[in-house]
């Protein structure tokens, strides 16, 4: 990689061991992935829940946090993905004291590095959405795909170490979706039925993700007959990123870089094409529901709920009573508004629990299952059903309405019509 004098200086350790490690880490990554040089980034977003960090990761952060202040501070706005608990509700989740202690240590270390503890995976809805063409270093797949696709910003998946490196150095290796050439479509998906509910959008994302198959594929969707809202794009993108490890999609006539299909597929260029219809979406949903007739809990999470989703949930719960655990997980930015507007009170009056600053699967999901006796989980998040099976759960993908109905019927799931 070509290095500037400043980057050479960082690598030599002139600005301390934190920057030396960070630039060296970025060079190793950049070389592997074919970067010629670095690109300045405007923001960084770090995924670093303690279930992922482990004790080793927290100790690693603490060593960095003990450096002199002038050697350890991030130089661009650097924010965080959800944490591993909501301290206010940790007892309800049966999080063990050691988990909370590890979380506190990680938070203290991040704060010492100058990182803003936003604890959210919907920063594009709540903190500061990136603008078209802006280079950023984001570290949650749902955040990256939304920023790239809906906002037209430029980011690769930046795992915690790399996002932290970007925060420290103010740059990232220029490969992947920082490059024009990588942002062109590699497959076309013609959608014959535009999804309605959020779980429909998630199911479509899952199908397209499976078709795409890996990080370097860029699907362009045609046939979407209306402009999806932010929450719909959120669920679609999060599922697409989860099932396919995809970081960028286009919707012809809708997303900013694909006002026309020709903008992302050159005339005469042969790219694989696929058709997806309602039957495919129903089949995906059915595949996650057919083995479940009763659930132990209902979870709305992954991504965190927007204020609009919080209100939808509160409306659905009015006058009803959840008789199994029902969790609504939102961001620390949405939660005060939900409190102020009475949404939290309405959800909790109906037996639900509002959690903030965490995400269900990033919060010791296996240990929560063991401590609470949870096994069968209903959610309207296609991303969550894709992840949570690995933690020992049997997930069902259902609409928000169906999830609420199950929560208010002792967990009994109304049969979904087979496709």
């Amino acid at each position, binding site marked *: 990689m070509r290095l500037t004098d400043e980057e050479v200086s960082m690598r030599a350790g002139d600005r301390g061991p934190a920057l030396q490690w960070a630039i060296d*880490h970025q060079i*190793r*990554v950049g070389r*592997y*992935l*074919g970067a010629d040089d670095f690109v300045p980034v405007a923001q960084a977003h770090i*995924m*670093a*829940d303690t279930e*992922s*960090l*482990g*004790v*080793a*990761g927290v100790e*690693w952060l603490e060593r960095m946090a003990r450096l002199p202040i002038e050697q350890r501070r991030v130089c661009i706005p650097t924010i965080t993905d959800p944490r591993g608990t909501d301290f206010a509700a940790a007892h309800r989740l049966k999080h063990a004291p050691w988990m909370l202690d590890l979380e506190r240590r990680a938070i203290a270390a991040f704060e010492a590095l100058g990182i803003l503890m936003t604890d959210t995976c919907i920063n594009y809805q709540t903190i500061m959405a990136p603008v078209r063409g802006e280079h950023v270093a984001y*570290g*949650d*797949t749902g955040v990256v795909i939304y920023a790239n696709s809906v906002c037209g910003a430029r980011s*690769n*998946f*930046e*795992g*915690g*170490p*790399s996002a932290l490196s970007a925060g420290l150095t103010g740059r990232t290796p220029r*490969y*992947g979706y920082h490059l024009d050439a990588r942002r062109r479509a590699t497959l076309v998906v013609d959608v014959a039925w535009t999804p309605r509910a959020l779980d429909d959008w998630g199911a479509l994302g899952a199908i397209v993700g499976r078709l795409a*198959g*890996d*990080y*370097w594929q860029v699907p362009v969707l045609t046939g979407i007959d209306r402009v999806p809202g932010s929450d719909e794009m959120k669920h679609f993108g999060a599922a697409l*990123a*989860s099932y*396919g*490890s995809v970081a960028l999609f286009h919707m012809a006539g809708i997303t900013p870089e694909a006002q026309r299909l020709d903008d992302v597929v050159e005339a005469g260029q042969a790219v694989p094409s696929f058709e997806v219809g309602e039957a495919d979406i129903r089949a995906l949903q059915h595949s996650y529901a057919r083995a479940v007739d009763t659930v132990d809990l209902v979870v709305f999470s992954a991504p965190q709920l927007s204020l609009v989703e919080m209100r939808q949930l509160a409306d659905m719960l009015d006058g009803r009573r959840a008789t199994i655990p029902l969790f609504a997980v939102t961001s620390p930015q949405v939660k005060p508004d939900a409190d102020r507007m009475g949404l939290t009170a309405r959800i909790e009056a109906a037996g639900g629990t509002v959690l903030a600053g965490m995400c269900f*699967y*990033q919060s010791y999901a*296996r240990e929560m299952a063991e401590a609470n006796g949870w096994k069968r989980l209903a959610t309207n998040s296609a991303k969550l059903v*894709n*992840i949570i*099976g*690995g*933690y*020992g759960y049997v997930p069902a993908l259902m609409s928000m309405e169906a999830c609420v109905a199950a929560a208010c019927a002792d967990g009994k799931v109304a049969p979904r019509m087979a496709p």
Partner: protein
Amino acid sequence: MSGKVYFAAAGMGPKVRGLALVAKDGFSARYDLDRMRGVFSRPQHKLAGESYVGRVLVLDAAKGGVATAWMLHDMKARGLVPAALVLNAVNPIMVQGAALADFTMISGFDVDITQAIANGGRGRGRSDPGAAVHPDHLIGEKELR
């Protein structure tokens, strides 16, 4: 040392040897593994129930989210880590995680490496007798024990 050499487009980490564990499936530390027990835990994964500890994992593509970037580091610290990852296609997260953990990983072949190495046929996954992973190539070994 015997065996056919497969050259990778990119790689990092020290040279390692180990029994290969091969499947035409993806890899994500968060989605697929019980990292406390050292086994594949996602029921739909073709290696579900198999121990990955000390094995050269030969898989198709990096999948899932960003957590693997931290998790490889933690897995290595606890001694419950594969010997190496050999993938047809990586995503940046795997590279970033391997860089942090100083973990051996190579990727990008002119053949489907999960088909080239697979010839054992044990369990639900297919275990090759062995593989040696170098920074830029993989040797599928017939007699490695």
